[in-house]
């Protein structure tokens, strides 16, 4: 078994693509554990908490935050192969390379306010539990608002990928996935009322602004990971239309 693996590492022409794909899958697993299980930042904490409540939230999740985000700081680099793979998919299309490059720039930047800022700020908050509650609440707000509120970059990135897919003639992705990118982009808009409301369905933990959005995002992520895998299987390193999935590999 391991000798086959080593052979693939040495000789498989698609090894970089597969490495990037596996990095994506592994990253999302770490992300899920860090955010959902360890630090309890997903689903998000209650925005209606007052200063005391925020301080108590930090206390309750103290070790989860420190451990969960220590993991995130280690694995954040794995988003690079993911973005590279998606940009690669656009390079394989019949369109100008500008699409791939734009996406790469947009999504490389987006991780900073869209994920890392929350990790840093909450770790800072957990570092000194004896800080004033008002300061802790400030860190709490900054973390969650930056995470939820910075959708502009993700929105534009999704639209870039959508446009690329729709005008592509190499059939790298099915057109319905282009439209799914539009659905994902729209969820970024739906989340924007979170800047205004402290409670209710439009708050950053609300039924509409978070829960329904998360379902759409989850579907979208599962779909693109599957489609990227199929793209790698189909890849022929040419410049024409991508061949269909070979029957045996369709499982």
């Amino acid at each position, binding site marked *: 078994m391991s000798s086959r693996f080593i052979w693939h590492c040495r000789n498989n022409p698609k090894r970089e693509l597969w490495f990037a794909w596996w990095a994506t899958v592994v990253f999302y697993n770490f992300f899920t554990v860090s955010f959902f299980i360890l630090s309890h930042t997903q689903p998000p904490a209650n925005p209606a908490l007052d200063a005391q409540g925020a301080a108590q939230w930090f206390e309750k999740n103290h070790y989860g935050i420190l451990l969960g985000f220590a993991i995130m700081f280690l694995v954040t680099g794995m988003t690079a192969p993911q973005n590279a793979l998606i940009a690669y998919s656009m390079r394989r299309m019949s369109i100008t390379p500008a699409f791939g490059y734009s996406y790469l720039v947009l999504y490389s930047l987006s991780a900073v306010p869209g994920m890392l800022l929350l990790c840093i700020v909450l770790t800072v908050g957990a570092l000194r539990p004896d800080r004033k509650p008002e300061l802790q609440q400030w860190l709490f707000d900054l973390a969650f608002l930056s995470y939820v509120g910075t959708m502009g970059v993700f929105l534009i990135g999704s639209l870039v990928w959508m446009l690329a897919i729709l005008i592509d003639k190499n059939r790298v992705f*099915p057109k319905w996935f282009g439209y799914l990118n539009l*659905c994902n982009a729209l969820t970024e808009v739906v989340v924007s009322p979170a800047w205004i*409301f402290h409670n209710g369905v439009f708050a950053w933990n609300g039924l509409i602004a978070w829960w329904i959005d998360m379902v759409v995002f989850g579907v979208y992520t599962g779909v693109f990971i599957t489609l990227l895998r199929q793209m790698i299987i189909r890849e022929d390193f040419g410049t024409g239309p991508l061949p269909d999935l070979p029957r045996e590999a369709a499982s």
Partner: protein
Amino acid sequence: MTQTARADARVRFVPGQPDMWAFVLFETLVFTSYFVVYLLFRTQHHELYLRAQAGLDLQIGVFNTICLLSSSWAVARCVQASRHGAYRSALTNAFLTVFFGFVFLVSKVLEWARQIRMGNGFTANEFFQHYFFLTSIHCLHLLIGFVVMGVVVYQLLSPKRRSQELVETGATYWHTVDFLWVLIFSLLYVVR
């Protein structure tokens, strides 16, 4: 195939790209979830929602709905004309579609302005949160619809480009904007 033969023939075809249909069904699911949230919360604060709803003008809602129904009619005629090669008629109908959509948009913006002046803003109460959210997200879909109709017009304009499939795909999207409004209208303006 002659015109009448085509229309009467039992040739079953998917209008436009099946991909667009997948999008339509998925978006309908998402909107249904928004409607479910609205209805659930409505039943929890019935009095509040009833009183707030009184601020809406049903006649404007009816006018809006008929506007979009007319735009749907126009885009259906556009598809039909394009199918029969009558491209000038198809273009006229495409512009008619956009025209009705634009009337809807203007009417909506004026209605929002009026509600805000009356004190019923986005943050006024729970009912108006849902009102502004649903009508705004629908309007966003309408604006995307204008882009889609732009693609349709672009296709119809050049004899080299004309793709019946793209015209039908665009029409499918536009009809979605219409039927989503039918649902939103009944839930916001009429439901008690």
